């Protein structure tokens, strides 16, 4: 068998400049692939903002572009959380909006007028290209193998775990913060390797950007100190670590405190205490280092023990006292739910009610990462083999990333970068071993020695001196392994494309369904209803709905809402929950007090759309019960046998609740008598539908997904609403005179 043509092909890439050119071309292709695979939804539907949170970000961006940075910074939003309003400028992470705003203005300066919506829609794909590049850089710090970086970049570019939050239109904080996360890690590794203040400062800069963009910055805040701590425990304290860490911590903390939403949290909350602790610890170590060089060994021993014990005791006592005195806030609920997955379910229903806060199901790992998930441990193992400072980082990151990803679905996102890096190291290792056409000889050994020497120089203290000459001699085995690997890689691409196209590219504002003949049918009820609100209601008509739809109503219908997806005020949400789950007579005063004009409910019974309000109803009840345990009782919504039913056997409390009535009001009229069917819950509804006294049906969308009700005004002649609508229906008022008992006298 002749290896000549292959060798000739391999020779093309031998020259340094050719390699660089190739790398640049490949990186551009990777970025292109990353962007292209995220465009399914734009091509299939249109350039539209997806889901819920992105609608708020989009609205905020529009405000920023229209009013400038300073009024955005001081933005008091009086169209959400009516009547409380929201200090939006001070309670959001402005990084995303400012990024889009900057791009918008830059393009305009270049006389390329692009609609802000398109910038917002395409921001996430654009940043995914950058993320691929950042992953390339990070991986290159880990291994001398030139292919690992490119493989990591390609993995990062198309891994569904990352695509899930960064398809076109998914204009969320994560869109840019994963790039910032990876790039900050790269800069940290760089700073640590070089002991450079410049890289440390750059790391702090990007950390600041990250803080400005996403609440997930706490992951960095905890991971870097942890990495440093592990290094110290391994006896690897060095001035490089000292310089890198102190530079990052001092500048990064200052930078993070500039964000109004973060403010003094870095010195007040428990989440940020490890970083501060390690900062102090490093100062002590540096001091001890100095003392050791100044005084003799024995004295130093006693000094060390006394000093270490003293500081530890004082530090611990200080922490306990400060926490119990309330200077340092104890851990937040979301944090506890990271350790105990059932914590939120018991204590904070509002956190548990969000599906992305649920623990991950194990198939999700395979679904989101495919073959990377089994290459991941191999990569981590390879890191153990070399175990320089940066490899410790990968190990620590891998451990914590996997734990958090297992606890909360959305944290799959933070795991994905390290999985890509580790898997790329593993794959490149395989390829480096098997893609060499020549059989091993003494020459090869020399080459290997050289590369080993390089590796040795990069770090210290590894016992890899007595490596026997191992090599693959048979081309068949090489071919088998390489082709198997290639097939895996191709399957990976197929899987990624399939997952992206089928699972992650639905805007959820527009629902797509297949007709019998296979053609696509668009169900556009949401936009139909929001458009109706926009065109038919007063500009300041307050809309009450469950908080899931708050951002969309604000963004698409441009109407004030009572609660929205920024769930900062549990009581206000519970108020809405109470209004939805109580009788009309109880709900009406609540709605009057909050000046509600319209109530919006989502009802999927006709179409079989399972994400509707009746299915979310128990969360409303639970959240309301958390505040008003005497008035709302979850048990009362179940049948005596403990079933959650909506048909004739539903409990009376359920049937009297406003949500039930709004969902099924007039629904019977669609069907022949007694045939009304709820397709989501598979229930046959009672023959007589509910009556509504305090609300008027205002709008029902084509497929009945959205139903909007108008809240009636107080009765003009002072009756209660039940009496008024009974009169409207032609029922005579019962004669009061027939009643026995004491006469009610009028007192003036």
């Amino acid at each position, binding site marked *: 068998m002749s290896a000549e043509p292959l060798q000739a092909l391999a020779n093309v890439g031998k020259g340094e400049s050719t390699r660089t050119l190739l790398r640049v071309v490949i990186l551009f292709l990777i970025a292109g692939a990353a962007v292209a695979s995220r465009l399914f939804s734009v091509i299939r539907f249109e350039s539209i903002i997806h889901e819920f949170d992105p609608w708020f970000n989009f609205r905020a961006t529009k405000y920023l572009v229209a009013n400038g940075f300073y009024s955005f910074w001081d933005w008091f939003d009086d169209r959400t959380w*009516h*009547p409380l309003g929201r200090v939006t400028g001070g309670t959001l992470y402005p990084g995303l909006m400012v990024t889009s705003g900057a791009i918008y203005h830059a393009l305009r300066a270049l006389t390329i007028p692009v609609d802000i919506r398109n910038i917002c829609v395409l921001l996430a794909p654009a940043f995914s290209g950058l993320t691929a590049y950042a992953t390339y850089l990070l991986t290159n710090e880990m291994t001398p193998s030139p292919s690992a970086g490119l493989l990591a970049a390609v993995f990062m570019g198309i891994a569904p775990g990352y695509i899930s939050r960064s398809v076109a239109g998914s204009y969320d904080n994560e869109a840019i913060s994963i790039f910032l996360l990876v790039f900050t890690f790269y800069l940290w590794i760089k700073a640590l390797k070089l002991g450079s203040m410049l890289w440390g400062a750059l790391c702090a800069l990007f950390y600041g950007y990250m803080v400005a963009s996403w609440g997930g910055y706490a992951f960095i805040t905890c991971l870097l100190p942890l990495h440093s701590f592990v290094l110290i425990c391994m006896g690897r304290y060095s001035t490089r670590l000292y310089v890198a860490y102190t530079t990052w911590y001092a500048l990064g903390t200052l930078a993070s405190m500039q964000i109004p939403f973060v403010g003094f949290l870095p010195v007040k909350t428990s989440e940020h205490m490890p970083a501060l602790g390690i900062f102090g610890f490093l100062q002590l170590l540096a001091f001890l280092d100095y003392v050791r060089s100044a005084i003799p060994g024995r004295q130093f021993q006693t000094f060390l023990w006394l000093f270490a014990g003293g500081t530890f005791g004082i530090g611990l006592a200080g922490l306990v006292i400060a926490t119990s005195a309330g200077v340092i806030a104890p851990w937040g609920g979301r944090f506890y739910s990271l350790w105990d997955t059932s914590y939120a379910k018991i204590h904070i229903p509002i956190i548990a009610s969000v599906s992305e806060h649920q623990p991950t199901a194990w198939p999700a790992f395979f679904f989101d990462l495919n073959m990377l998930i089994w290459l991941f441990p191999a990569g981590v193992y390879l890191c153990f083999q070399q175990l320089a400072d940066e490899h410790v980082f990968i190990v620590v990151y891998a451990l914590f990333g996997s734990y958090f990803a297992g606890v909360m679905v959305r944290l799959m996102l933070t795991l994905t970068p390290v999985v890509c890096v580790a898997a790329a190291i593993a794959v490149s290792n395989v390829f480096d071993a098997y893609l060499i056409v020549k059989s091993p000889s003494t020459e090869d050994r020399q080459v290997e020695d050289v590369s080993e020497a390089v590796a040795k120089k990069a770090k210290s203290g590894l016992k890899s001196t007595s490596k026997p000459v191992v090599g693959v001699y048979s081309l068949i085995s090489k071919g088998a392994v390489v082709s198997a690997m290639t097939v895996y890689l191709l399957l990976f691409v197929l899987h990624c494309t399939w997952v992206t196209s089928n699972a992650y590219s639905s805007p959820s504002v527009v629902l797509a369904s297949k007709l019998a003949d296979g053609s696509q049918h668009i169900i556009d009820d949401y936009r139909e209803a929001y458009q109706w609100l926009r065109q038919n209601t007063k500009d300041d008509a307050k809309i009450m709905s469950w908080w899931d739809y708050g951002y969309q109503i604000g963004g698409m219908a441009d109407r004030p809402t009572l609660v929205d997806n920024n769930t900062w005020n549990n009581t206000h949400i519970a108020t809405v929950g109470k209004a939805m789950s109580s009788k009309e007579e109880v709900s009406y005063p609540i709605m009057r007090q909050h000046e509600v004009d319209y109530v919006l409910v989502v009802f999927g019974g006709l179409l079989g759309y399972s994400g509707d309000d009746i299915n979310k109803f128990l969360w409303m009840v639970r959240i309301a019960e958390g505040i008003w345990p005497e008035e709302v009782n979850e048990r009362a919504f179940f049948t005596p046998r403990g079933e959650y039913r909506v048909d004739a056997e539903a409990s009376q409390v359920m049937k009297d609740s406003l949500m039930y009535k709004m969902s099924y009001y007039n629904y019977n009229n669609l069907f022949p008598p007694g045939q009304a069917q709820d397709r989501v819950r598979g229930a046959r509804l009672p023959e007589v539908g509910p009556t509504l006294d305090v609300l008027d049906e205002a709008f029902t969308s084509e497929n009945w997904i959205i139903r909007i009700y108008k809240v009636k005004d107080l009765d*003009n002649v002072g009756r209660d609403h039940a009496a008024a609508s009974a009169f409207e229906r032609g029922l005579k008022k019962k004669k009061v005179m027939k009643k026995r008992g004491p006469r009610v006298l009028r007192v003036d």
Partner: protein
Amino acid sequence: MRSLLLFFALLWVTAVSAISTTGDRLLVVLDDVADKATYSKFLGDLESRGFKLSYETPKSESLSLFRLGERAYDHVILFPSRAKGLGPNLTPNVLLQFINANGNILLTLSSASSTPSSVISLLAEIDIQLPADRTGLVVDHFNYDAASAADKHDVLLLPPPSSIRADIKDFFGVGAGANEVLAFPRGVGATLGSGELLTPIVRAPATAYSYNPKEQAEVLDDVFAAGSQLALAAAFQARNSARFALVGSAEMLSDTWFDAEVKTVGGKAAKTYNREFAKRVSGWAFQEIGVLRVNWIEHHLNEVGATNESNPGIYRIKNDVTYTISLSEYSWSTWSAFSVPANDALQLEFSMLSPFHRLPLVLDPAHSNPEAAAYTASFKLPDQHGIFNFKVNYKRPFFTNLEEKNTVSVRHMAHDEWPRSYVISGAWPWIAGIFATVTGWLAFCALWMYSAPTDKKKVIKKTQ
């Protein structure tokens, strides 16, 4: 040409506004149009006040309170009818709809005929009860007209009505002469529910009671109502300020009783107050008196050095603001400045979910004139951001309901509105600390750079 047109238009407007504030189309519903002669003085008075009267019978085909979805009349007088119901054009639903569309109704009853069921249902909806079996007669064995009802005691002589509470302005008895009494012949009394929209105008004396002369002529076992619980004339004002007045005796509005000479039980001769009373009741019902109008509302920032623009949509917490509301009262033909009754107060609420401030509004002479009175209040906004309402909620019996809500947002302090650090005395040690560190650092650098190394050995050690 245009100005001439405008002039005529204005002339027409003033001519129209010389009567009721809500319009001059008055429908009189009588069983027989010929009966109007009985009430000629009353109707003539109305006509002379500027109303355009139309007459219809309940059975008339052409009778319709609405035309093309709009009110065809502004006011309706219903005289007693002998019919059991009032026909398809005056169902309780139509009448209620008429009230909901800001129409005013003056309803009169009579003990001579049973009340139509349509009227009974309407009254039931607004919480006024009539005696069972739709007939009743109010008698008083101590206050009757000795001249005309010496036997039956069914013509009541009452003192002119006065206000039922000290803080309520007296609209119905102010024009009464010293020797005038209100005659209430053969009327029906009603009981009122305890709703705040209802107010009695004339209450029966303590000795009066209501009975059914047909069934209870022999034995009276169950009194429908007696004494002051029995309202002989009552006022109802809906939330939209549409008015409904009930007069228990249609006869008291007839020509006979307008200037009749009556004799009290004590034998004193007196004149009746009925004509003036009829004018005032109809005037109230048809929005000629007790009508309030908000001319304008203005609120502005009340701070030194700020541009105090009118009615801004947004304020900041702890701003000083001034709120002014201008009110006029209509009385028969003119708008005049509204003055709050002596024992009453006009209040301003600044509220979000619940009031944060409830302040008295005081007369502001600078912005008042004979036609409009301005009331004002100045205060500091609460230290709470949110969407607040300036709310004036003035609902008093017989006066138009005032419920004015002006929504403003109250924002938080912007980042550049806080006092600078050097203004806060508590920050001075810290600022001093910063400068001490800066100077110390500079001094150290200077010392480091300009002090020559003394020992070569030491220098080598340092560079390592």
